[in-house]
């Protein structure tokens, strides 16, 4: 199971540019990783899960040595950062996290730090809450109490707001060309058969009717991908979709129907209703086995933005710009 944790390293999802829709949209999102066979909560659990996150105590691990303390502290920060930065995380950060996690785990294992391990697992399983907003080509993502990132693609501008120090930093020269380059080669999973898709009864989630689907597939990986080891796997992906335009629609549909996306999430777009907003996704891998885990996405508070929300994408009053 700890291999799974270590393999958080490759959580490197690229976020496509926001759509050019006439209006805008905002929503809150919880990302979770359920380890050691934990069962995903049902759709409609957002409020309970958000309350659990809000009540989560900061990690206060017990350390035997100073070096162990440093390694584990770094691990916890990086793991929480990874979970919270899913849509914008970079692989470099992931690699750093992997090394720190491996080092931390080895240190913890050798020092019998089971309490620290359990605390870290609980922290990851509780997840993180982010608030997203999209308006024209602008995007804003905030992790409560930590950092807010604003991207204005039309201006080549990125603004980072540090919510603790109330400072803002801007990156990117106006008008410069920006290229997006992904060099990491895709490992193509081999499907035993096309994914089996079952339509689920509609559910009312957050006051709106959502369409439900369950995809099941068996596939084999020729090498490790993200947190999935090489070899055969079984994935079950449950997804509920709102009839609302997704500000981050997928490009070309993946050839495997998206089932192997559980291993290395590369977006949040709907597989079953492309272009529509996913409000619940539970992707379970190898359920019932010792290596089972699940990744979760829950969204709520979906609301439309108008022209009056434009200032929301600028440095707020009270923040000092750092250079």
């Amino acid at each position: 199971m700890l291999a799974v944790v270590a393999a958080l390293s490759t959580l490197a999802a690229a976020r496509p540019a926001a759509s050019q829709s006439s209006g805008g949209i905002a929503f809150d999102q919880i990302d979770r990783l359920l380890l050691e066979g934990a069962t995903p909560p049902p759709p409609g659990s957002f409020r309970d899960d958000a309350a659990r996150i809000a009540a989560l105590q900061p990690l206060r691990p017990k350390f035997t040595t100073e070096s162990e303390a440093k390694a584990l502290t770094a691990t916890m920060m990086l793991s929480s950062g990874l979970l919270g930065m899913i849509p914008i995380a970079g692989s470099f950060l992931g690699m750093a996290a992997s090394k720190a996690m491996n080092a931390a785990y080895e240190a913890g294992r050798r020092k019998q730090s089971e309490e620290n391990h359990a605390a870290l697992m609980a922290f990851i399983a509780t997840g993180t809450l982010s608030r997203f907003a999209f308006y024209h080509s602008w995007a804003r993502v905030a992790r409560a109490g930590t950092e807010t990132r604003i991207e204005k693609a039309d201006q080549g501008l990125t603004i980072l707001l540090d919510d603790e120090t109330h400072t803002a930093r801007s990156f990117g020269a106006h008008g410069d060309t920006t290229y997006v380059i992904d060099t990491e080669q895709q490992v193509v999973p081999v499907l035993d058969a096309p994914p089996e898709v079952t339509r689920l009864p509609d559910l009312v989630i957050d006051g709106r009717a959502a369409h439900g689907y369950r995809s099941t597939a068996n596939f084999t990986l020729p090498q490790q991908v993200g947190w999935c080891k090489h070899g055969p796997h079984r994935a079950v992906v449950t997804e509920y979709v709102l009839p609302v335009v997704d500000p981050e629609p997928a490009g070309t549909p993946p050839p495997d129907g998206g089932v192997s996306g559980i291993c290395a999430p590369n977006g949040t777009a709907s597989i079953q209703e492309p272009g529509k907003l996913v409000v619940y996704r539970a992707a379970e891998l190898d359920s019932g086995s010792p290596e089972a885990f699940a990744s979760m996405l829950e969204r709520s508070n979906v609301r439309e933005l108008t022209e009056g929300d434009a200032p929301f994408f600028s440095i707020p009053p009270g923040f000092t710009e750092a250079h």
Partner: protein
Amino acid sequence: MRTQSLVPTLAVSLVVAAVACLPATAAAPPLQPGDSFTYENTSQMKLSGNVPSQVAGRPQPAYHATTTIAVKSVNPDGSALVHVVVQKLPPEGIHFGAAQTAAWNQINAGSEFDTTMMPWRALRINVDIEAINGPGLSGSATQEHDQLIALASDPNHQHALAANQAKGYLSTVDAVAEACAKRTSFAAGDTWHAIIDGLPYDFAITGRQTAGTRDVVVLSVAYDTLNSGGETKLDGTALYDPAAQLVVGTHTVTIASIKANGMTSTTTSDTTLKE
């Protein structure tokens, strides 16, 4: 062979600082079986902040490595299957006796792997983390020792480790190659951005000079990533031959700090194409 920092090189041999406009990039000559590229890398790190006083601010031993890339075959799209050999020298300033030298050579054994080089001379390296981590240790101390020896001798582990190391040594070289391949002209003052595997790089053409027989442009390279865990900042320069679509050298300083424990590492790295 020890490489030289690009900083003095730039200061001495900067021939033309103000280049109004350079010609469009010609397509690089296609890769051919037998083509070979060798990069020499020197890296040195300092730790500061919340670290023991014995190491705070003091340079750690410098590490030298050579990465040789040999084209084995060329694909229809112009990319190539290449064989990469990573050779690491013992840390500078540390005397190795016969036993240590033998151990070091053992560590270096198998430091090779196959991967893809794009037509624009950037490597595409997949790192198999599972092979690096191995299955984990269990049992008595003796059993764990044996398991570690077995892992270190596993060819899959060795190849994955070499791939990880090469990816690190050539990270800036490959980033520059990827970012420059997107450009059709290189004019002094040009600036552009490239988000490469999630890292937000800034590039700028600062001049032009000769490097050996090559006519190269001088670029500044930088990125700064912030997150709730800390900050990683890279600043550097690179020499790039547009006609050959080849990175001739890089010099970078990377500062990584972690908020949680107050540790900061500063790593200076120089990579030079050996010709």
